């Protein structure tokens, strides 16, 4: 009998370790693409519910001029209880609370999308380029990211807004520019693995220069977890805007949910609806964002959903 030598087919054997996972992985690999992503996303009841909540808030914000019964700045008799004229009552200045809530959704959504988009754009680029280049640049930059991430963000934002002003666009920019290091860190981790893949190595060997490789190959392939994180950042931006407005640091030329709470908090005893209703609006939007974010994460990270029946 001849004694054959060893041929260690390590990769194959590891797969066998949990071949169910392997088969699932195979099925997933076949089903790439946006359509499959959407299908798997929509298969989750929680995620669909989240989408619905977001839809309600977005529709109210988009059609605010048509839906809102009053001009949100118009002054009526102050501190009215909810009734047929003012479904959610009026605030201490006599502004209709329902109309303020409908219009206020615009500010919250502007923060959600504006700040998260800015953070996404800056974070992706600032994570991808140093991560791709590596070396000293990357070392120094990662240190900077770590430093930035430990700073108490809300305190910094309050300080900036108090010193430099509370204009809507400015505050959105401040928020985006304080949130991006988180995205950069996620992107960088992605880049470190993508860099080693065949198609990137092939592009390098073919003499393609770094920037086209980063933008054409590295970023598109590493984007998924950053996008999942973006839904959380949207929620953070909404919450922070509400907090700032609640503290009296909102843009005085806009109407926002936090400002309604700020104006109404002293009247919680007499007109509780002023306080209850804007909070419900914030909750609706945040819950929608969290449910959608959770759904996206589950689709992107199958390990969390595997075995769920």
């Amino acid at each position, binding site marked *: 009998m001849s004694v054959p030598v060893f041929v260690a087919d390590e990769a194959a054997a590891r797969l066998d370790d949990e071949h169910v996972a392997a088969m699932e992985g195979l099925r997933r690999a076949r089903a790439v693409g946006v359509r499959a992503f959407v299908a798997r996303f929509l298969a989750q009841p*929680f995620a669909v519910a989240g989408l619905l909540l977001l839809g309600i808030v977005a529709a109210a914000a988009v059609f605010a001029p048509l839906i809102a019964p009053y001009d949100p700045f118009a002054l009526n008799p102050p501190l009215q209880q909810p009734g047929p004229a003012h479904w959610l009552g009026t605030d201490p200045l006599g502004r209709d609370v329902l109309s303020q809530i409908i219009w206020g959704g615009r500010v919250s959504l502007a923060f959600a999308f504006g700040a998260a988009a800015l953070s996404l754009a800056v974070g992706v680029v600032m994570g991808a380029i140093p991560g791709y280049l590596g070396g000293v640049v990357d070392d120094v930059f990662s*240190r900077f990211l770590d*430093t930035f991430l*430990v*700073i*108490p*963000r*809300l*305190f*910094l934002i*309050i*300080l*900036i807004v*108090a*010193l*430099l*002003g509370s204009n809507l666009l400015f505050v959105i920019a401040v928020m985006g520019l304080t949130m991006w290091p988180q995205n950069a860190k996620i992107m960088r981790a992605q880049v470190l693995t993508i860099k080693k893949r065949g198609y990137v190595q092939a592009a390098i060997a073919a003499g393609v220069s770094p920037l086209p490789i980063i933008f054409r190959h590295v970023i598109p392939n590493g984007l998924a977890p950053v996008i999942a994180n973006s839904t959380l950042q949207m*929620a953070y931006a909404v*919450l922070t805007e*509400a*907090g700032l407005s*609640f*503290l*009296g*640091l909102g843009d005085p030329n806009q109407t926002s949910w936090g400002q309604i*709470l700020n104006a109404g*908090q002293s009247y*919680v*005893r007499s007109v*509780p609806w002023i*306080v*209850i209703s*804007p*909070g419900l609006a*914030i*909750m609706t939007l*945040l*819950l929608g964002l*969290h*449910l959608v974010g*959770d759904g996206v994460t589950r689709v992107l990270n199958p*390990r*969390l959903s595997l*075995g*769920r*029946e």
Partner: protein
Amino acid sequence: MRRYALRRVVQIVPVMLFIAVVNFLLIHLAPGDPAAALAGEDAPQEFIEALRVDYGLDKPLLQQLGTYLGTLLQGDLGYSFSYRRPVIEVIVERLPATMLLVFASQIPAIVFGTLLGAYSARHYPSKIDNAVTAVSLSLYAVPIFWSGLLLILVFAVWLRWLPASGMYSLAAPSEGIGRLFDIARHMALPATALFLYSLPTYVRLTRASVIEIMREDFITTARAIGYSESVVFFRHALRNALLPAVTVAGLSLSFVFAGALLTETVFGWPGMGRLMYEGVLKRDYPVLMGVFLVTSALVLVVGILTDLLYATLDPRVSYE
């Protein structure tokens, strides 16, 4: 171990330097006179002029930065005109109230959150687990200042069980058990708000990490050896699963301080967060910058303590 700790302490220096530089730049970016910004809104002209000399605000920018860092290094965070006292004194006076609130809310949040998360993971996948997920996601969606207002509405306005704001009653005894009880009554609502705010973080984290750990090979080994499910869970899984909870407890301190800021504002709790709010109202910039610096320093120190604790819990971490 000692060398590791020392190295971590040294790492604070560049971070604090960075924060100080941010403060410095903000003063100069602010519209108008930096001396006026440094003085705060109510300060009289003489005081502004005195500051201009003290901080050398007529000197070149780099020299100004040097002077600013020099004063910070001496523990001088500036002078608050609205309180007529050095900023550091005002902050030190407010710190205990904040720490009390943080401990009273975070210890139960860590304990209950971890237990609930572990319980949920043990029943994964099931209706119970889904319910826990739904509840924790909903709690994430509640702004803390709003839950604070609702707590006031229910427990102070409608039920009249607990006081709505402050830390003491005027009529309460000024010492002994009576005083402690009085403080506890005042703390009940703000601590609950902060507890509910932090709870879902620990639930979600522990749940995810227990689910992950229960799939590890060493759990299969433990089962194969013949340990009962509860031994497998408590002895072999939970200890591994708690490691990330420790890290997050440390890292989330800045998030807890942010929650405390809003809670203290709602409940008029005389802590550092409330001080920040008062600083905003009075445009007392030295106070705002001081609170920002002190909060950052606390977050950094707790970060180091967390790392050291982690290192003693996880044998894989080497001190080098």
